[in-house]
């Protein structure tokens, strides 16, 4: 009994080789690098004003203070719109955009890949073109279009333009190409309608693709304060990131820099939480158990 135990122990020790230690060391270094922005963000939200403007900039906070958060709260309480309204606006528009975008992009990509309609090459060309066009560059024409549709200053202005996103389509399309035709054929022979095949066979198989998409899309839409800045004038419709940035004086205002740090921290928090919550789904279910030959 004892002998077995000793033997097993020795075996485990032998497994921890030099190369493995190096691997962990390397990965740990990379993790530190990746965690740096997050760490810096937390530190900056706790920094007193004099530390924020040190040269060279300091990474680690020396005298942590919660004043930034109380500063932010004071500027919030003086506004006419209750704080919860901003949270609702952000959550509502982000969630609706995400869900709609996933459905529309999966439908389209599935149709394009698995049905190969006439002109699918042209459509794919347009998708790549749409990918390479920066949103910031088309912002004025975009405003003109949204304005002509009469959507300015409504929730829809924050939702509709961001549904048919080229990148989401591109990602799902690549995943769709790996769906085996045989399963779809089998369903078709059994007499399933196309929409039903899509919903009950393709979508579950594409789950890794769209859960990933859900996280990307949530993070992007949540952090986006560019489109509310342009499309929304009414205070009651502002989203959380925009409200926090404007309330705290916006970037570049010296007096409230601390509050900006606190605001940044608070806006990033939900994205981190969503990721923490969905992490298992995104990272682990990405294996296509059994659907690939």
């Amino acid at each position: 009994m004892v002998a077995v135990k000793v033997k097993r122990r020795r075996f485990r020790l032998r497994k921890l080789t030099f190369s493995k230690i190096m691997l962990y060391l390397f990965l740990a270094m990379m993790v530190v690098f990746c965690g740096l922005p997050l760490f810096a963000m937390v530190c900056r939200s706790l920094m007193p004003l004099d530390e924020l403007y040190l040269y060279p900039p300091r990474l680690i906070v020396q005298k942590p203070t919660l004043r930034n958060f109380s500063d932010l709260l004071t500027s919030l309480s003086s506004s006419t719109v209750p704080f919860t309204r901003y949270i609702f606006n952000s959550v509502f528009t982000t969630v609706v955009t995400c869900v709609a975008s996933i459905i529309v992009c999966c439908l389209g990509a599935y149709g394009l890949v698995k049905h190969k309609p006439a002109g699918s090459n042209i459509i794919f060309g347009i998708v790549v073109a749409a990918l390479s066009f920066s949103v910031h560059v088309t912002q004025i024409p975009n405003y003109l279009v949204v304005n002509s549709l009469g959507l300015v200053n409504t929730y829809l202005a924050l939702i509709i333009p961001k549904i048919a996103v080229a990148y989401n389509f591109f990602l799902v399309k690549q995943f769709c190409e790996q769906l085996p035709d045989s399963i779809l054929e089998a369903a078709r022979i059994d007499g399933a309608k196309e929409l039903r095949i899509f919903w009950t066979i393709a979508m579950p198989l594409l789950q890794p693709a769209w859960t990933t998409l859900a996280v990307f899309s949530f993070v992007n839409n949540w952090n986006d304060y560019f489109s509310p800045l342009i499309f929304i004038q009414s205070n009651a419709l502002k989203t959380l990131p925009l409200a926090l940035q404007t309330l705290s004086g916006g970037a570049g205002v010296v007096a409230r820099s601390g509050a900006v740090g606190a605001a940044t921290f608070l806006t990033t928090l939900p994205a981190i939480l969503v990721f923490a919550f969905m992490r298992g789904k995104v990272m682990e279910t990405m294996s296509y158990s059994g659907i690939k030959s």
Partner: protein
Amino acid sequence: MSGKAKKKRRMSMEKKRSLEAYIFLIPWLIGLFLFFLRPILISMQLSFSDIVKLKGFVMDWVGLENYRYIFFYDINFIPMFLQTVTDTLLNTPICLVFSLVIAILINRPMKGRGFFRAAFFIPVLLGAGYVMKQMLGMGADGTTITTGIVVPELIADLLGHNLTEFLQGVLDRITVVLWKSGVQIVLFLAGLQGISSSLYEAARVDGATEWEMFWKITLPMITPVILMNMVYTIVNFFTDATNPIVDYIYKQSFGNPQQFAHGAAMGWVYFAFAFLLCIITIGVMRRFVYVSGGKE
């Protein structure tokens, strides 16, 4: 005769499937038309025009005037453009190789795998938001937190000035690349996990080494993901809001209303180049993409 009839029937079947595909695509196409095609057509028109009246956006056709301006009179555009192009061309391969290596490392069974996988995704969560801008030195005085990471003095003395400068440049680039590889790592992981383990088992039975398995199995099987990642990385570096040129175009368009048209022209030159790069990448990479089962 029966053959002809058969052919005819098949044609109609193909047509039917085409039609079904378009029904699936309709919602997406509407969105694409409204919020991509129309804006870029307006912006194209804008790039060939001069705005006569801001109210109602009255435009006057001026031909290539705006393009002439940005190429021959604007002293900032061309240097910034070239800088972005070199940066993208240098960063993309570094980013791809790096994320593939990391993905392979954290795909193997090991302790704390979940933790590592999450950690590499953190920079993505922060997005191109305010934090990243500060970190990447978009602050007013150009100071960054990344400049804190310097080559230690002892090593610097040993290497001499030029080599240190080079090393510092590489270090700076690596930090930027690292923070922008989260998505690529996740996509590579997805690709790696899509490779059937029976392939590796068969190779192991045949006595293949890890190194051989990487070149003969992993790399060919992952080529579709490499293509996807390549396009994504190029686009991501090009359209990044922290990019000096995107910032410049934006400032041109919004800073002074008179410059809308110049901004549009710059946007078009920039876009045309990015698009061309993507098309070339896809065209070249398609030759190397391995399709399992040899379909088509």
